[in-house]
């Protein structure tokens, strides 16, 4: 069997970038939450805020650490598997990614240490400043990386000469047509992820009756936040979709499962796209609704996938279904946020166990929404890597063989499986120990200044350990 380096490289990139993406999308939202908690602690001097902030900072440390390690891999993927793309796009992407490193990564690295270990070592104001700087760093980082990605979706401000992109306008290239929508959509996604995780974990603690006062406060804050941003995300998503319709009509056609360009297009709730015959099987839809959503007119024209040749079409089924999963989760989020408001009216939101159970399970939902959302936008761009200008096949490293690509694909899967199962296990331990008992802080000096080490939890569960009582010092 001939191994195809193109498909193996696509699988590899999808794997390493999906694995990486789930960490920063959470830490961006969580960093802002921690900054808010630090601000409240600074202003009110209520120890409850300090307690919440200290706990969530531990969680942040673990997740941020995994994001950093998986991120190093990303900075070399362009060169190893997509060297023609690297060579062609370097004039734009090189400076953009370099700016990300110098304006964001160093900022985060420097102030994270102060945030994690400096509470008793620097004045409270400096500590708050560090929290704000870490949060700022995460946003600066997403600004640059989303600019780079958006340029690949809607290239602007560059011209292709002899196979190399040259920048003609930096502002047009950085602020390319889809960037504002993608950046805003992703920022809200980060807040939603952070919000639902904090709300879900708080709900779980409330179900167990642990640290009720603090967790009630955390849940309440998150529910207020979610009440505004979950619907806002739906509106913003609509704008983003209209922008995509303008610049990447084929992607929208795939999202809607619409093969022929036509009017009065239904919104499909279910269908099995049959790419070979350019049609859907088992369609169930609401008449004319897709036309209305996309054009705001019932008989508006919606582009079809078949308008472009078969070899320029994305795999419709993946885009179609990923989009439905994302939107479905988004609607579920709105439902939970509104339910929270209804229950709040009677003061019952923090002791209604079915609601708390539901919130608990919702804590993992945003990750699926984010991943499927990225599947829509990335797979929907296929076969293009730089939309309309460079295909994935053209971008591949010429010397790459199927065997080499398979070797590293298996390698990354094994390494990530080992490292990240240990990391997730450790994260569970942090959650298990919870907010209670900050006894170990006096031993803080013995810990190296490292993200994971901020969370004073031994790796193994102690035989004699009980609920809420942290294990004794590991190895000292």
């Amino acid at each position, binding site marked *: 069997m001939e191994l195809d380096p193109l498909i193996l490289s696509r699988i590899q990139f999808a794997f390493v970038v999906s694995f990486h993406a789930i960490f920063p999308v959470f830490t961006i939202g969580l960093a802002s939450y921690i900054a808010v908690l630090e601000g409240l602690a600074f202003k009110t001097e209520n120890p409850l805020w300090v307690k919440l902030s200290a706990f969530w900072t531990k969680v942040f440390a673990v997740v941020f650490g995994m994001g950093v390690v998986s991120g190093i891999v990303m900075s070399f993927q362009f060169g190893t598997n997509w060297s023609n793309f690297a060579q062609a796009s370097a004039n*734009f992407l090189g*400076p953009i990614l370099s700016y990300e490193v*110098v304006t964001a990564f160093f900022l985060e690295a420097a102030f994270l240490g102060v945030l994690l270990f400096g509470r008793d070592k620097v004045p409270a104001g400096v500590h708050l400043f560090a929290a704000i700087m870490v949060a700022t760093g995460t946003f600066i980082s997403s600004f640059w990386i989303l600019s780079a990605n958006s340029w690949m979706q809607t290239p602007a401000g560059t011209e292709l000469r002899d196979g190399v992109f040259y920048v003609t306008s930096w502002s047009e290239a950085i602020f390319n047509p889809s960037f504002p929508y993608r950046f805003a959509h992703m920022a809200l996604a980060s807040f939603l992820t952070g919000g639902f995780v904090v709300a879900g974990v708080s709900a779980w603690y409330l179900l167990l009756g642990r640290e009720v006062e603090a967790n009630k406060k955390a849940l309440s804050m998150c529910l207020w936040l979610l009440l505004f941003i979950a619907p806002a995300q739906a509106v913003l998503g609509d704008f983003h979709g209209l922008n995509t319709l303008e610049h990447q009509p084929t992607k929208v056609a795939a999202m809607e499962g619409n093969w022929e360009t036509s009017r009065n297009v239904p919104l499909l709730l279910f269908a099995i796209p049959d790419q070979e015959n350019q049609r859907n099987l088992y369609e169930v839809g609401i008449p004319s609704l897709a036309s209305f959503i996309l054009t705001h007119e019932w008989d508006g024209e919606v582009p079809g996938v078949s308008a472009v040749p078969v070899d320029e079409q994305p795999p419709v089924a993946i885009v179609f279904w990923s989009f439905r999963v994302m939107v479905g989760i988004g609607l579920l989020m709105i439902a939970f946020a509104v339910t929270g408001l209804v229950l709040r009216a009677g003061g019952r939101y923090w002791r209604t166990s079915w609601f708390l159970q539901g919130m608990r399970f919702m804590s993992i939902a945003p990750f699926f929404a984010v991943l499927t959302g990225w599947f829509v936008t990335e797979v929907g761009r296929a076969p293009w890597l730089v939309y309309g200008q460079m295909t994935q096949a053209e971008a591949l490293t010429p010397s790459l063989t199927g065997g080499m690509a398979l070797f590293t694909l298996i390698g990354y899967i094994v390494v990530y499986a080992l490292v990240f199962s240990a990391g997730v296990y450790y994260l569970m331990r942090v959650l298990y120990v919870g907010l209670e008992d900050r006894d170990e802080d006096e031993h803080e000096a013995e810990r190296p200044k490292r993200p994971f080490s901020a969370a004073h939890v031994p790796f193994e569960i102690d035989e004699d350990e009980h609920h809420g009582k942290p294990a004794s010092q590991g190895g000292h």
Partner: protein
Amino acid sequence: MELFDLPLIWAFIIGFGIIMYVLMDGFDLGVGILFPFAPNEEARDTMMNSVAPVWDGNETWLVLGGAGLLAAFPMVYSIFLPALYIGVFLLLAGLIFRGVAFEFRFKARTSRYLWNWAFAGGSTVASFAQGAVVGAYIQGFETANGVYVGGALDWLTPFTVLTGLGMLAGYALLGSTWLIMKTEGYLQQWAYKITLPLLLAVLVVFGIIGVWTPFVDEMVRERWFSNLSIIWILPVLTLLCAIQIYRSVRDRKDGMPFVATMGLFITTYLGLVVSRWPYVVPPEYTLWEAASAYESQLFLLLGLLFVIPIVLVYTAWTYWVFRGKVRAGEGYH
């Protein structure tokens, strides 16, 4: 038309970045290489604590190196990485394992030995891979029209294995002299004891590499032997640094061995640079041919002039916060 020779400026910046990375990540990788040979578990705690606050900042320079190469010399980025495909994977896997070992080792109890091995193994593999990259650069790459056309394992030759071992020995020496500077008591005595054998190993391997290099490529041979030029001062300085390491270890000076080892690295590095200058993708392409567009180099350079000084202030601040000796079971204050 163009006001400055930007590719030249960028060559200095990237060259500076590489030696910064080698010196900074070198000593913490070296501590990892020495890890299995430490006197006991308590010593390992102290060793790890001595580099824990700074290692991730050090590795950020590697990420900047990758992004900076893409920005300034995309041809280097898009030829080296495919040519070193398997080696790059090993390098990254090594860095991942040693990175998480910092995080997990202090939480582990019964599984602690696993993270000891992850730290040591990851550091060793990553160091060897970096040395092999240097060797592969001296060897040169098979290219056509600016694209790598060689095979997956062309980089793996007896010469690159030797440069890989050279980097291992060199980083181990940086690690041991770092420990002399940052620790005290029996751990420091142990570091003193292993430094001279490590120095000997470095001199032997570097010496063989030095003799071998001119025979790998004719251009290098001519540069060194066609006429006796000023560049011969570099190996002389390397030797002086080695003597300085020996004397300062003999006289039990805490800081000097580390400083002299850095000097040994810098002079060796410069010797390497002059061997191949101005070729960045030997034997075909010079730095001017490998450069990105003028506007792109300018756009990034202007920003870096503002941002990098601020970054250096952070970095210096971190080292200042964690200055002084690291004591067993005490960590940082």
